Every structure is written in C-alpha cells, then in structure tokens.
C-alpha cells in the first residue's frame, strides 16, 4: 500500500497497461509532449515507442472514429477527450457506432476502447469546461460508464476498462486529480466494473453517489453523525451498469434515500436510481426519495459567485438528509 494522488493512480494505470499489452495505445489532444492539459499523461511519451501516444488533430469525432476502427482491428485504444464537454462532437461515433458494434454484428466484432475525460465544476471553467456528461451515456445499451471517486478505484477500474472488450467511458473529476489522495494496493490489481461499494456504513439514511460527490457525502455524513443521524454512503463507481443489489440492500437497511450528483437534476443518473428504488425498493421506503444535484441550468457559469451558488455540496446534502430524518 502507498498513498497516491488521483492523477498519479490514473497515470500508473495507463503506464502499466501500456507496458503489459502492446495493443494499448493513447490518442488525444495535447497528450504527447505536453502531457495533456491536466498532465495525466505527463512523462509517458518518453517511455514508449513511437505511435503509442498520438497527439490528435482537433477533431473529436474523427479521433473516436479512428479509435473504433483501430479497436476493430485488434488494438485497445484509450482516447482522452480534453474536457468531457467536448465529447459531444463525437456523440454519434460513441452512441451509434461503438456502443452497438457488438450487437449489430451479432457478436462478430468487439470495440475494446476506453474514452477518458475530465468532468465537473469548481475549477472556474465556465459553461464548457465544467460539465458532467455521464447521464447521456448511462442511457445507452452497449456502453459501460465508470466514475471513480478515489485513487485506488480509479486505477483498478481503469485497468478493468482497458481490458474490457466493450467500449467504456471513464470520467475523472478534474478537482480530484490533485486534491484527492488515498491508499492504493501494490502491484497489478483490478476493480470490477459494475460493482458499487459501501464507503461508510450507516443506519438511518443511504446517501448514494459517485465520483467527487462521494466525498461531499462522506463530509455530510460526518457532520450528520455529530447530530445523531447515521448515514450510509454508497459509492456507485459505475453508473452503467448499475449495481442494483448494493443499492437495494442499503435501502432495505435504512429506508431513507438521498441520491447525490453534480450533474443537473432532471434526467440525471439519480433519476434512474430513484426509479429503481421506487419499484424494487418500494417496500423498504419510509420516506420520499430525495435527490441532491445541480439545478437545471446549463452547467456552471464562470464568475465564482455564480458558480458556487449552483454547485451542490455537503450543505445541500445535510439539508436533504435532515428533511429525510424528520419525515
């Protein structure tokens, strides 16, 4: 075990998988000499043969299309989209092509491709460098969508994603890169895609979340415990497929649920989690299903005051949890 930053865990994961499998290569904007705008790929260029790290032209659809083609011809590309916000030009390639290649060819072709992208607000990036985009992809059969919250999971899930024969979207909160640290297993390990984990045990309320918001939940749980409210924090880790077993077990235990994400409320991943609970967890429920999320505004404005008022955080979770506890 050793302590690592989130960013280093991801870089280690990339380096180890590239070293282990010659089919793995990276493609993205500014990922070569420059090491990526967040420096995730810093130092990798020197370590590998030419062609293993490709600085792409400014053309997201082409980049993903190229990766799909390479994946269909035996490679395992890892694409970096500079900001999650800029995945939309490639939406058609991801949703119409990568996601359904296996199904449409009746199992003949696979697309073992990973798309990594930094997401999330709080970095004063304005409307186009702050978005959460996981909900769009969590709706798509054929895709897997991973949003890790800590270095250990990030590395283990990234390795699983690269070894997976399906296209996987892998979202990394940009604030996590340098601020989130954690213990990480030694050696080669993986974390399975599709399994949630209980990050903190609790009795009264289930806080269900993923990505950076898990830390807000843990913080809120700490605050609430001082007031005698015991929260269980479920870290989904994967938002497609959802681990319904772990979700429902927690609901069964607590009977009260608050789902938390940084994405906009309406049609976010929280909606699906709430719908699952409203059906299969109905008998366990002692209170309305709460959601804490960004309001329905197009991402976060640039001006810090305007951004901060929209960013969901521990205070909002505490408020919602108290409402639940009082119900």
């Amino acid at each position, binding site marked *: 075990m050793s302590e690592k930053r989130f960013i280093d865990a991801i870089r280690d994961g990339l380096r180890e998988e590239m070293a282990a499998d010659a089919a793995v290569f990276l493609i993205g904007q500014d990922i070569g000499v420059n090491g990526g705008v967040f420096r995730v790929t810093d130092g990798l260029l020197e370590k590998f043969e030419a062609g293993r790290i490709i600085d792409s032209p400014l053309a997201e659809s082409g980049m993903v*299309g*190229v990766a799909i083609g390479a994946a269909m011809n*035996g*490679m395992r590309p890892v694409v970096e989209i500079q900001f999650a916000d800029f995945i939309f030009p490639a939406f058609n390639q991801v949703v119409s092509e990568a996601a359904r290649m296996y199904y*449409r060819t*009746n199992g*003949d072709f696979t697309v073992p491709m990973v798309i990594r992208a930094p997401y999330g607000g709080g970095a004063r990036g304005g409307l186009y460098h702050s978005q959460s985009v996981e909900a769009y992809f969590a709706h798509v059969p054929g895709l897997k969508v991973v949003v890790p919250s800590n270095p250990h999971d990030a590395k283990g899930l990234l390795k699983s994603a690269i070894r997976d024969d399906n296209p996987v979207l892998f979202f990394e909160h940009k604030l996590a890169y340098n601020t989130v640290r954690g213990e990480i297993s030694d050696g080669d390990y993986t974390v399975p895609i599709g399994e949630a984990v209980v990050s903190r045990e609790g009795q009264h309320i289930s806080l269900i979340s993923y990505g950076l918001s898990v830390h807000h939940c843990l913080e809120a749980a700490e605050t609430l415990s001082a007031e005698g409210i015991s929260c269980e924090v479920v870290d989904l880790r994967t938002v497609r497929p959802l681990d319904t077993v772990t979700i429902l077990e927690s609901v069964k235990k607590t009977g009260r649920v608050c789902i938390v994400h940084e994405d906009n409320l309406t049609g976010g991943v929280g909606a699906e989690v709430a719908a699952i609970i409203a059906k299969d967890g109905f008998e366990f429920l002692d209170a309305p299903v709460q959601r804490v999320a960004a309001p329905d505004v197009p991402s976060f404005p640039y001006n810090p005051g305007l951004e901060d008022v929209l960013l969901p955080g521990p205070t909002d979770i505490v408020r919602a949890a108290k409402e639940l506890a009082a119900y």
Partner: protein
Amino acid sequence: MPINSRLNESGLDQKDAQSIYRYMLLARSISEKSWLLTRQGRVLFSMPCDGQEAADVASAYALDTVTDFIVPYARSLGAMLVKGMTTQEVMLNMFGKAADPNSGGRQMPMHWGHKQLGIISMGSSVGTTIPRASGVALASKLRGQNAVTMVYFGEGSASEGDFHEGLGFAGVHRLPVVFFCNNNGWATSVPVSLQNAEPQVAKRAQGYGFPGVTVDGSDPLAIYQAVKAAVHRARSGGGPTLVEANTIRMMPHSSSDDHLRYRTQEDLENERKLDPIPLFRDFLITTGILDETSDQELQEFVDLEVEEAIELADAAPSAAAETAFNGVYAP
C-alpha cells in the same frame, strides 16, 4: 489506344477481365432480383447498385482480397462479392436470417460486415465509416502489417464532417488507406449541385496533403488502374489516395424511393448509355475475350446461382425471437 493494349496497360490479364465481368454480372443479378423481391414483399428493403458494378468490382479487385480490409457502404455489393462473400450469404442478409454472417438479421439488408473476410461492419449513419477506416489502417501500421484498407462511400456522404476528419487524420499519419468515392450525382433526391459547389470530390484531397483522382466509373480498366496505383502507394508507405469514380444510379435510391418524383425519364435513359455492363461486354467481345455463347452461358449460370440462393435463404430460419435480447455486451 488499341483496345487490347488497354487491357495490357491496366495490368490485368484476360482471366482477370473475365472474372471482373462475372462479378459485375453477379452483382447486377443480385441487385435486380433483390429489387423484385422487395416488389413482391418477400424482402423488405434493398439499395440497388445497378450502374456502379464496374466501380465496386474493379476497385476491390485491386486489393489483396485476403489480407486487406474493406469498409463498405450499402451499395458496395460488388466489392463484397470480390472480397469473398458468397451469393448465399448475401441472400441470407437480404432476408435477414439467422445465418446471415453480416448481422444475423439484426441490421437492414445490405449493411455489410464480416470479420473473417476483413469487411468492417457498417451501420446506417453515413460518413462514420471514414475515420473508422483510418483507424483500421492505423492499427495495421502500428503493428507493422502491410494491409491496405479501402473505404467506400457516396459523394453525398462526403459532405459529413466525418469525411473531413477521417481524411485529415489519414493524411497526417500517411496511413495505408484508399478513400473510394462513388459519385453518382445524387444523395437520394438531392442533386450534386445542392450538395457541394465543386462537383468533383477528388478535388478535396489536396487540402489533406495527398492525391485525388477522378475516373470514369463505367470503365473497369480505368478504375482498376487508378485503385491499383493507390493501393500500391498505400502499401509502400506513400500514404492515402482519394479515388473518385463518376458513376450512375440507374435505379431509385432504395426500395422506399420513387425517383420519378425528382428525375426525368429522359435523364434516366441518357444515363443508361453509361451502364458499365453492356459497355464492358462489348469491350470483351470486341477483344475476343468473350463470345456471345459463353456470355449467354455465364449469365444463365449467374442467374441460377442467385435463384438458388434466394430459395435457400427464404427457407432458412430466422433467429429465435428471444435472441433479440442477447449480445448487447461482449463477455
């Protein structure tokens, strides 16, 4: 140029010419019969390739049909046959049956894909295939394999952004890929004049730093020659080429289309003069490569092959309904 030396110059021998002719006849026969099947309601959809058989067949003939890759589009039937798809397989595809190697009936007819044959699966969203082809070629290059990838598309689809991004990337990395555009002058009902102010797609190649050539889409020898050169260039590290064949579309866009809503009979009849099949037949007969009798026999043989395939495909089982739920994710 004397007719015989045209053949010599193209690099093809008499056998090749016969083989190309046979594939062209086969593609035409399948296309025509598929159309009839849609009129009878036995098949639900078809996209005829009538008029572009020379382009498809002769271009694919310039590939190494075992190791090279094709990224097709819906009208690439001729190329599929050259690449090794059997008439039987094509008909299983037309009927959407379980044994269809392209998709087991999941995709619409003429949505090709066959991993073992090196045919990279296509969906319906046009243009997406083009960067994919660059990616297939990139993989070959990264592994040091000298396979060439050829991608087919219509001039209408060349308006999609993916065309631009796919060609741009291939240029930068000098990828072993040939971009083959069938310019039939129509995107469904939209004439080329409303698609792009420059009617020849090949003119765009220089913007990507590699050559573009336009050839007569009714002349299999010219097509073969142009593509052969492009394939050679690609295989020897010279990078991509954009080859454009000016073809004709003798039939409606698809079995759901009625081209008389936007084309005149006169226009269609004029275009028929460029039908590559009688033109090539005349050439082969004039040069003594074919005679009337063997042509007759060949046509009958081809038609029989198609008829048999139709009957077998029609009788073949569909995939069990419950299988529709399966195979969303690879294990």
